C-alpha cells in the first residue's frame, strides 16, 4: 500500500511538475512541437534527397521515417526523466528529502517516468498525426499508414511493452545522476544521440557495421520501433509478435541490470553527494 501511494503520488507529481507551469492544454501543445518538428524535418530531408537525385518518392519509406522519428522522440522524452528528476531534485534540494522518506527513491523515479510516459505518448501520437496530415498535403502524396482498431491496439501494446526498457535506461542513467555531482544534466543528451543511431529510428540497423548492427538489432528500443512499424505500416502480425517478444525480454533484462546498478549507487551516500554538498 505504501509503495502504491508513493508510486501514485510520484506519478501525480510528475504530471503536475511537467504541466502545471502553464495551462495543461498549452503545455501539451508546446510539448508536441519538438516531435512534430523532428518528424517533419527528417521526412523533408528524405523527400529532398530523393527528388534531387531524380528517384521516385516511396510512401512506405516515408512512413518508415515518420513512425521511427516520432517514436524515437517518444522514448527520448521519457527515458531521460529519471536522470533529470534526480538532477533537478538535487538542484532544488527536494531530492535529499525524497531520499529520506522511508521508501526508496526508486519508486519516485518510476512514478516520474510513468508520468512522462503518459505525457509523451499523448504528444508523440499527436505529433505523428499532425505530421502525417501536414506531410500529405505538403508533399502531395498519400503516406502508407494502417489506422484500424487492430493496428492501434498493437501500437498501444508495443508502447506498454517498451516501458520496462525505458524505465531500465532511466534507472541506469539515474544511478549516474544519483552519484554524480557534474554532467548529470547533459548526460541524457549524449545517450539520446547514440540511441538515434542504434535504435533503427531513421534507418535499418543492418546498414551499421558488424558487430554493431547485431547488437543494435537486439536493443529493446529497436524492437519496439520495429513492432510499431509492423503494426502501422506493414501489417505483419508474425514479425510484430517476434519484435514484441524481443522488446519485452530485452526490457526485463535491462530493467533488472539497471535496478541493480541503481541500488549500487548507495555509494553516493558514502561520498556525500546525495545533497550535492562535498564537505
Amino acid at each position, binding site marked *: 500500500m505504501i509503495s502504491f501511494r508513493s508510486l501514485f503520488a510520484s506519478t501525480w507529481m510528475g504530471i503536475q511538475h511537467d504541466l502545471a507551469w502553464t495551462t495543461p492544454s498549452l503545455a501539451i501543445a508546446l510539448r508536441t512541437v519538438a516531435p512534430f518538428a523532428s518528424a517533419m524535418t527528417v521526412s523533408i530531408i528524405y523527400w529532398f534527397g530523393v527528388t534531387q537525385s531524380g528517384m521516385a518518392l516511396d510512401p512506405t519509406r516515408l512512413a518508415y521515417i515518420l513512425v521511427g522519428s516520432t517514436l524515437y522522440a517518444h522514448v527520448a522524452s521519457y527515458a531521460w526523466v529519471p536522470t533529470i528528476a534526480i538532477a533537478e531534485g538535487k538542484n*532544488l534540494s527536494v531530492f535529499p528529502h525524497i531520499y529520506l522518506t522511508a521508501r526508496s527513491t526508486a519508486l519516485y523515479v518510476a512514478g516520474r517516468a510513468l508520468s512522462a510516459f503518459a505525457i509523451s505518448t499523448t504528444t508523440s501520437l499527436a505529433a505523428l498525426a499532425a505530421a502525417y496530415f501536414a506531410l500529405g498535403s505538403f508533399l502531395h502524396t498519400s503516406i502508407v499508414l494502417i489506422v484500424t482498431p487492430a493496428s492501434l491496439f498493437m501500437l498501444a501494446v508495443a508502447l506498454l511493452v517498451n516501458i520496462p526498457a525505458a524505465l531500465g535506461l532511466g534507472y541506469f542513467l539515474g544511478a549516474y545522476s544519483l552519484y554524480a555531482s557534474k554532467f548529470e544534466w547533459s548526460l541524457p543528451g549524449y545517450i539520446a544521440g547514440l540511441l538515434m543511431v542504434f535504435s533503427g529510428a531513421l534507418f535499418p540497423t543492418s546498414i551499421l557495421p558488424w558487430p554493431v548492427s547485431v547488437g543494435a538489432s537486439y536493443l529493446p528500443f529497436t524492437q519496439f520501433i520495429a513492432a510499431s512499424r509492423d503494426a502501422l505500416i506493414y501489417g505483419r502480425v508474425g514479425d510484430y509478435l517476434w519484435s514484441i517478444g524481443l522488446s519485452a525480454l530485452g526490457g526485463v533484462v535491462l530493467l533488472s541490470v539497471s535496478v541493480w546498478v541503481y541500488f549500487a549507487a548507495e555509494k553516493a551516500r558514502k561520498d556525500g553527494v546525495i545533497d550535492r554538498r562535498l564537505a
Partner: protein
Amino acid sequence: MISADHVSVEVEGLRRQFKTKSAPVVALDGVSLKVGEGEIFGVLGPNGAGKTTMIRILSTLLMPSGGSAKVMGFDVEHEAEKVRRVINMASGAEKAGYDFISAKRNLWFFSQLYGIPGEVAEKRIGDLSERLGLTKYLDRKFYALSTGYRQRATIARAFVNDPRVVFLDEPTIGLDVMTARSIREFLQTEAKTHGRTIMLATHNMAEVEAICDRVAIIDKGKIIAEGTPEDLKRSLGAPALVMEVSPPPKDLEMLRQVAGVKGFTSSADEERGLSTVQVVVENDSAANGASAAMATAGYRVVASWRKEATLEEVFVALVGSGFKEREEEGGP
C-alpha cells in the same frame, strides 16, 4: 544524566573526513553526545564547524568515516531504512519544494511518500499549517510564497510523518523576528507536548538560549563544551567586558598578554569610526587590565561596560576568539 531507556540520539566517536584535491578535510573529529527523548538539543558553532555534517550523518544522507551513531536505537550506517522511518529533517538554507505546485500539494506529496493514508495526511497538514500560521497560504504555489511562509511549509514538511526525532539545520536563518519566533514556539510545543526530540544545528546563539534544553558547542569538528545554556554561561564566572575603542584596532593580540583574559572578539563600526571589543575575563582585575592594555597600545576607550555572559562569550572563552574570527580562519 539521560537514562539509557530515554536516549533518542547516541553518538560515539563520530568522525567524517572528506577527500579534496589538496588534502583530506576532517569535518567531524570524534564527536560523542547523547540526546534524550523530548529534548531540544542545540549544536552551536561557527560556519564550517561540522554542524551540518553531523546532521547529514544522523539523518542518513551521509555515511560516517568512523565511530557510530544511533537514532532511536537504530544504527545510521547499517539500519538507515529503520532510522528514516522515525526521523525527518529540514534545512533553513534550502528551498525544498516544487515551485509550480501549491504548498498544500507539496506537503501532500511528501506525506504520500511516507505512505500516510489520505484522510490522515489531510488532517495532519491542516493541523500543522494552522499551528504554523500557514493555512491562508496553503493553496499558493511554492514559488509564490514569501521566504517566511516557504520556511513554515518546510518546517511543516519535517513533521508531516509524525517523526520521533527531527533534525533541523539553521531553521530560522534569514527570517524576520516574528516568523522566527513563531517557528521556535512551534518547535517547543512539538518537543514538550508531543515528546519529539529536536536536534537543532545553528550559529544563532539567541535561538539556542531561547529554546534549547541543552547545547553542545562545536568547533573544528570537536565538541568543546556541553550542558544547559545556563550552566555554560555560569561557568564563565565574571561578566564580560565590552569596550568601544577608537580608532578600530588592527590587532588585539596585546589583550592575550593580560592575565585572566580568556578570549575576545571584535566588530568594527566604520560609520562611527570605532570597534566594539568584547573581552571574556576571569575576574574584575582582568577586566581592568584589558582596559589598561588598550590605552597603553594607543587606543581610546570611548565607553566600556560589563554585560552578562551569553553563549558567544562561552565560545570565546573556550577557543580564544569569536564565531566571526573562527569563520575567517576557515573551518573544516
